[in-house]
């Protein structure tokens, strides 16, 4: 496995160097579906990818698949509504659980049982996260068994074209943007990636490739103060939770919040991907030693896992 995760590219460009450092030469398949309507506006991206870009145009393909198949489009719309309802119920449960854990955390830890109560409160949050992912799995399975999205005629055509383009590429680059759109497009049009294909992904692109997608923004104007598990990701790598824009989106000065975040995801590496970050995962798809991560003590430090 050759996976490189990058920080946001807006202010400090590291993608060009990452692509040039790949041990392969030839076309680079690109997924910028996260840009949605701006997907075709990819001139700058082509330059960043060293003039080797082959845009897979997954967002365009998704829109085309929906336009060509009204039954599937309507079913998708309803399916998304059901998923939104589930996300809403999940965040309702989550908010109270996280608030409870934070309140316990701020209690005097010399009081007997505070430590035990905290551990239990964090386990409760994890249980809610698991419940959410399991429920989403069930909703997705129901939808797939009813509507067979991968077998819809236009989807099959696009999957074939994408497979051909990927087959002739030597690497894959995935940009940031809307992480839900990236995930949807990857799931619908891209089959399992060749294990040897180098992948360079940044921001939302990096998030979509993990085991689970964690949304976070401590500064959200809509008042959603707690990180949410969104969906299972593609699962290209394991035990890594990418956190692009961490310094902009997380209150890293608040040790309780940071520690709560890190503990919630247990032994996973909560990987800080700020501007300029370049993190090459290990061959097993794990966080490499030295990568910047959130710790259980509530600070950003370097990863020292075995």
């Amino acid at each position: 496995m050759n996976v490189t995760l990058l920080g946001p590219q807006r202010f400090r460009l590291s993608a060009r160097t990452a692509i040039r450092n790949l041990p392969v030469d030839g076309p680079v398949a690109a997924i910028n579906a996260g840009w949605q309507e701006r997907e075709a506006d990819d001139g700058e991206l082509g330059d960043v990818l060293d003039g080797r870009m082959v845009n897979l145009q997954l967002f365009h393909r998704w829109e085309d698949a929906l336009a060509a198949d009204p039954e599937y489009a309507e079913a998708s719309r309803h399916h998304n509504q059901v998923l939104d309802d589930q996300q809403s119920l999940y965040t309702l449960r989550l908010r109270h659980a996280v608030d409870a854990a934070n309140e316990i955390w701020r209690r005097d830890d010399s009081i007997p049982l505070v430590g035990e109560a905290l551990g239990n409160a964090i386990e409760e949050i994890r249980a809610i996260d698991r419940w959410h992912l399991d429920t989403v799995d069930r909703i997705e399975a129901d939808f797939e068994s009813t509507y067979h999205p991968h077998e819809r005629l236009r989807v099959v055509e696009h999957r074939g074209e994408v497979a051909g383009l990927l087959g002739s590429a030597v690497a894959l680059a995935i940009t940031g943007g809307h992480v839900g759109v990236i995930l949807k497009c990857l799931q619908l049009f891209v089959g399992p990636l060749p294990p040897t294909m180098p992948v360079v992904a940044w921001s939302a692109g990096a998030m979509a490739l993990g085991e689970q997608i964690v949304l976070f923004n401590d500064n959200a104007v809509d008042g959603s103060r707690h990180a949410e598990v969104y969906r299972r990701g593609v699962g290209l790598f394991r035990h890594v939770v990418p956190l692009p824009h961490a310094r902009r989106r997380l209150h890293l000065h608040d040790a309780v919040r940071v520690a709560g975040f890190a503990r919630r995801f247990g032994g996973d590496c909560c990987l800080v991907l700020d501007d300029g970050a370049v993190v090459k995962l290990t061959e097993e798809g794990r966080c490499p030693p030295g990568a910047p991560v959130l710790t259980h003590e509530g600070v950003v430090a370097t990863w020292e896992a075995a």
Partner: protein
Amino acid sequence: MRPSPGRKLAINRLRQRRGLDKAAIDRFLARRDAPIVEGLRCTFLWRGEADEVRVRHRVVGLPDPLQLRRVGDTDLWYVAIELPENSRVEYQFELVLAGETISFVNDPLNPRVAHSPMGSSSVCYGSGYRVPDWTQPDPEARPGELVDMPIRSLALRRTTTVTVYLPARFRRTVSYPLLIVHDGGDYLRYAAAKTVLDNLIHRLDMAEVVAAFIRPGNRLVEYANSAAHARFVAAELVPALEAELPLAGTARSRCLMGSSFGGIASMSTAVRYPEMFGSLLLESTSFVFTDIGDDHGGGPAFDPVVTFVNRYRARPTRLADRIFMSCGVYEPLSVGNRSMVSTLQSAGMELRYVEARDGHNWENWRDRLQEGLSWIFPGPQKFVYE
């Protein structure tokens, strides 16, 4: 401007000068904005001949009127008050000249003016207050469109014009949430509602919505717990809009919004049609009620409101899934609004309540829209990591 500790206010330094003349006062005023805000102190100034000068305002906790004093034997008048950070205060002057009282005079030394259906008034920004940038036109934000739609209402026995906001890139293939705005004309005119919607949608702070800006006939009747108004909104307006536009058509996708009496109109409509609206956005709602006796202090126009709120407080019912409430801490209604928080929560609704150091006015309601609308209709911001 924040004075250094122990430094006297500018007006006091001026007062201590000897031989104050017209030129000295001219220079003093030319160098400063009025009112003069120095940290947590604010000095109101009036220049001109008068027997008495007063500041009129509606800030709970401050004497009203605030009497100004003359600086020496000049024609400059002043009064200094405490003004907490991030405050925003609307005010006017009242003069007594040759036995005659002249009211509702805006501050000629202050170019900042706020508008409302009642006219304009001067505005003082306390230390730290900034007009939110998302309330100002942003050339990068694609503008939505406003379309007038006449609706013949049997409930109201009149034809009313609803102004419908369609977001930029409006598509008939999308199912939009619906926001119904009471006092819609005033929200558009005095609270920059279209600019706010354009900007919040552009910034991904709120979802793309269709908004219906409705206007009252006799406001004090239609908005004070009127069954006819509720029937118009729920049984005529919503079906008409959903027949005409690509709307999601579910309770959770519908929100009623209003301020002051418009908040009562929103809430009383939801009480009558509890399964119809998923959320309410209530700003400085006229929550006037009595716990004992019938002296509510609001005058006859509030009688039906008091009856409605008293009845609801006695038996709170679930009206919606979520309610966003805001109120200015300088308005008398803040007590009633705070009191209603626990009442509404007791009916099992998710409620968010915010306050600001502001009063019962349109710019306060404008400034709270980002928090309210992004909470009711969250935008895709949390999904986007560029």
